């Protein structure tokens, strides 16, 4: 019952409903892993499907993700105590010269909602910084976002830098952003193109499983 309440509260973007629900669930002795899977991740999966089907849109996803983050703040210490492992690791960033972050942030939220650990490098991320982050975090996936035609070229430069560092075989590279297309992704040597955040999360899960 309480898990269902958490799930519904998250889908409504109700921060208080989610955090109070998690506290109640913990008090009732439910396992943190079960709260995560059946309360939070299941709700984010519903949001992802509805987003893909144009049943909910960016505002609804943003408030759901905000509620997810608030819930994770409560749950994370208990998850660490019980040793719950993420399903995979992602390094994510908006490419050099590009300061737009809404799309990248949506992707981060959907990734986190899928059980992935995300190292968000932020915006205006240089190729060198991506390379350093791969060495540091050893992700399975590198995600790059660009909103501008003037910065899309940086995706290619970053992929080249990853190759030059001898790291290309260690990661799958996913690209996206308003001006990016599947053909462009292919042209620059990315492995996966995602047209929106929901698709990015769907593709990421396929890559790590």
């Amino acid at each position, binding site marked *: 019952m309480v898990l269902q309440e958490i799930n519904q509260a998250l889908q409504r973007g109700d921060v208080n409903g989610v955090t109070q629900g998690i506290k109640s669930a913990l008090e009732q002795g439910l396992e943190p892993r079960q709260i995560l899977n059946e309360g939070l991740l299941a709700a984010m999966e519903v949001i992802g499907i509805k987003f893909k089907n144009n049943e909910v*849109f960016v505002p609804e996803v943003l408030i759901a993700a905000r509620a997810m983050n608030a819930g994770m703040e409560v749950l994370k210490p208990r998850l660490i105590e019980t040793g719950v492992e993420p399903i995979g690791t992602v390094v994510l960033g908006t490419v050099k010269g590009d300061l737009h972050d809404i799309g990248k*942030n949506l992707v981060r939220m959907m990734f986190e909602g899928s059980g992935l650990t995300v190292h968000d490098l932020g915006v205006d991320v240089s190729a060198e910084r991506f390379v350093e982050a791969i060495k540091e975090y050893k992700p399975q996936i590198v995600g790059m976002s660009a909103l501008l035609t003037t910065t899309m070229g940086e995706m290619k430069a970053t992929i080249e830098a990853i190759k030059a560092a001898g790291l290309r075989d260690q990661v799958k590279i996913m690209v996206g952003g308003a001006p990016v297309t599947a053909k462009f992704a292919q042209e620059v040597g990315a492995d996966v193109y995602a047209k929106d955040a929901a698709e990015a999360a769907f593709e990421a899960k396929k890559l790590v499983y």
Partner: protein
Amino acid sequence: MKPIERVSLTLQHKEADRIPVYPLLCGVSRKLVNASYPVWSTDMDVCAEAYEKVTDMFGLDVICTLIDLSVEAADFGQKIVFPENEAAHPDFNDYMLKSTKDIYTVEPIKFPAAKRMNGHVRLCDRLVKSKGQDVPVVAFVFGPLGILSMMRGQANLFMDIIDDPDAVKHGVAAITETLLEYVDALAATGVHAIMLDTLFASQSIMSKQMWLEFEGVYVEKIADRIREKGCMVMVHNCGTGIYFDAQIQTMKPTAISFLHVPDDCSSYEDAQAKYGDKITFIGHVPPTWLLYATEEEVREECRKEIAMHKAGGGFILATGCEYPANLSFDKAQVIIDSAKEFGRY
């Protein structure tokens, strides 16, 4: 046939000598006057010279005065960054509206003090005088919800819509009051049309119902005012699944400039069948695709689009959004040549 005659017939859904064409050559025009982006964006004499040159050099059929999406927000007090080689944008680390409550402080501004908007008015005035006899001049204005997003940050604003809808409506209403004065001033220059960019009227952002509630009712007032002042209303929207029906319902545009298929259509052909007799289509060559497409591929895309939309007028070949600002003019020339080659009636 002069561009203005060609476009006029096209907008009446009559066949001219050929379809009109204008790849949205805006920021890229700075190259023709050796100006940096900041200079082109802020010195309206330089900007006008660039628009005049690009129009003459490529024989464009329309001048559309898109500078950047920060023109209006700057005058409301948003700090703007002017990069050397890309369009100006808000300082993403310093939005002027720090909280949802701050939106209640947005008020209409004193239009005579609006530096960038008045600069745009002067640009239009010069272009109408220098080119307007032969080439229609379309003034580009960002929609009020988009302007508010430039002052608050998009993600913040989208959550505000749900957290405090009255705050957002207050902000949009205040901006709309200023935009009414703005379109009055633009119309007074003699521009032929004003193009409203209603960026958020698309499935890529928000539901149709939400858009109607938070921007639709406001742009309806602006569109009515534009028509009262004797100008045509045009709409630009480069989002996916754009809401043609909601935009037509609220703004009754003469033409819509678009990139992607509308939300209630399965294809461009379907869009043509559903809306082709109601509005003029402007589009829809994908600008980012131009970065890596071959000239032959661009030519073929243009041929296909022209074949799809040209019958009976009502189609202007254009890029679906601004031509990439750092690309050479070669692909633009291919688009223009294609209109002349395949677009003859």
